[in-house]
């Protein structure tokens, strides 16, 4: 029998009622997915307080060591957004279990948290759940969704495909998009016409298929292929459709495609505009 660890990370002290509730909810989800005979659920509470240096370290170390796990992280740990920072650190250390923001806040607050963190929370094995007594976003339903998702993705229960994917950010996505577009202008200069540049770029496309390679998808789009849906579905595409300033991925690619019919100066001006809007946005975010 395998063990799934439910690690509750909270600045409040442990309450047995919440521990029992979490255990019951996960068991209910396992039962609904006909997996309860194979799994046992164990719950561990980590009380943390960021006011003291290194107070997260023990919890991070323990949770990261779980082979199969669900980390339920309080949003206010104790400050708002600390929970998000904690999950980022977990993913940065390679934690490949499920990560949920676990909050007693109102539905509207939970939705705001969810909307503001598309990369970290809007993927398989991640999300927000509400604490009892009357959860609008119940844990058992969320676990069920992720267990079914794991089956569809061919993953073990309580494992995500790649923890690093959760650390995608708009800057990374912007750099990949800009770099994917870069060769088209350089090839236009070398080959003296857009059709010749597109033809040369198209030669790099076979082998990059089915959305596995974001840069390949962007290049395919610039070569006239209909891959916008796959681009938007990719984590990079989602990161650039999140609530950040600067153009979203669809608008950016459309303007680039249009620019790839005019002169080279206009193309470079468009690439420069995108670069400035996306990267200065990231810089402000970092300093803030």
């Amino acid at each position, binding site marked *: 029998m395998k063990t799934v660890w439910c690690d509750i990370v909270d600045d409040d002290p442990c309450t047995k009622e919440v521990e029992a509730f979490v255990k019951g909810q996960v068991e209910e989800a396992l039962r609904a997915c006909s997996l309860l005979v194979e799994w046992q659920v164990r719950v561990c509470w980590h009380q943390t307080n960021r006011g003291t240096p290194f107070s997260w370290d023990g919890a991070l170390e323990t949770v990261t060591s779980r082979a199969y796990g669900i980390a339920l992280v309080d949003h206010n740990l104790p400050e708002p957004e600390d929970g998000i920072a904690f999950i980022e650190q977990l993913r940065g250390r390679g934690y490949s279990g499920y990560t949920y923001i676990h909050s007693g806040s109102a539905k509207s607050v939970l939705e705001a948290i969810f909307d503001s963190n598309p990369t970290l929370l809007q993927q398989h094995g991640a999300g927000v759940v509400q604490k009892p007594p009357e959860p609008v976003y119940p844990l058992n339903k969320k676990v069920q969704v992720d267990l079914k998702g794991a089956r569809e993705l061919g993953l073990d229960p309580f494992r995500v495909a790649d923890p690093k994917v959760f650390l995608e950010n708009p800057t990374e996505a912007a750099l990949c998009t800009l770099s994917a577009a870069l060769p088209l202008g350089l090839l236009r200069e070398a080959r003296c016409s857009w059709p010749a540049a597109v033809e040369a770029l198209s030669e790099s496309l076979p082998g990059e298929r089915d959305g596995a390679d974001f840069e390949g998808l962007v290049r395919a789009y610039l070569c006239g292929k209909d891959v916008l849906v796959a681009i938007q579905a990719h984590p990079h595409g989602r990161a650039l459709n999140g609530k950040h300033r600067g153009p979203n991925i669809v608008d950016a690619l459309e303007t680039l495609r249009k620019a790839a019919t005019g002169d080279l100066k206009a193309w470079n001006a468009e690439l420069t505009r995108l670069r400035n809007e996306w*990267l200065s946005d990231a810089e402000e975010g970092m300093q803030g």
Partner: protein
Amino acid sequence: MRFVCDHEAICRALGLVGVGEVYVISRLPLDEVGQWETKDVAFVAWSPLQTLVRRPENSLASVPGVTFLRLPISLAALTGSRTARNPRASAPVRADLCVPLGQFTCSLHRLLGLLPTETPGEVLARVAELRRFCASHWPGWFESALDIVRNSLQQRDPTNAGELVKVLLEFSGQVATYEAFRAFLHGAGKDIVNAGPGPVNAALSYYLSGGLEYQDVLETLEGDRWWSAFAEEFAKIEQGLQGIGLSGFDPDMVLGKRVDTARQSLAGFAECAERLLRAPRGRKVTGRLRPRLEEAQRCLEVLMNTIQAIAREREKLRQRVHQRVEHAATAVR
């Protein structure tokens, strides 16, 4: 011209156009860079230089003699960058700026230099980048210390922030050395106790004390031929330690001869295990096989003890780092 990019996607883009030798900063050929001249190197990025060099991994971009090219750029300017350079400013490329430890210490030294004079916004941006860099290379060691540095800077206290930065400089080499072994330590992918070596060691012990059949040992070995993956991982560790050496810190000062011991014992075990698996099956254990099994167990125990000793020392170092940071943090408060 050699083009060094801050992002792999730029490498792939320039590779498609075929402009020449293109490298990403995180994967430079370390055995060659020492022979490069800065006049032959162009650093290519989308970000402006001022933003770029806040990131420790891009320290090379601000070295005098290295040409900086900001994208987008025309093909003519890219390929003509060789003629635009200033050969008089050229010097051999500093290999330490091509490895994480050297990049980290260089950035810490630069931060120390900037603390008294630079604007708070610039210094805080550099601290944020240092924190991200540490979380990526040595997670759990320095992030909290850098949070305290940030807090003290926000309270306009650069002197005490400087003291904390000096603590990080003091420990960075040791931390990098011990962290090189992270893949073998508890909770990691090739955990020396819980992954392959532990179960085999247990099987050998039970067999040699009469508690298991020879066939059980063979099945355990066949079930997980972990030693090949371990040897590959160990080669990566040694490569990492060589990189640490390039940054001016000698890992042997911390590890002594442990790396040699671990490598030899791993190779010794692998040889024994392969021989045992090649031997004809169903054969009764002869007097010739028993010493081989004993040798396999001896090698395995040496390997596990060596890595476990490193793990223990790593934990002691963690306590020392925490104590020093706590001490400095108290002074900050």
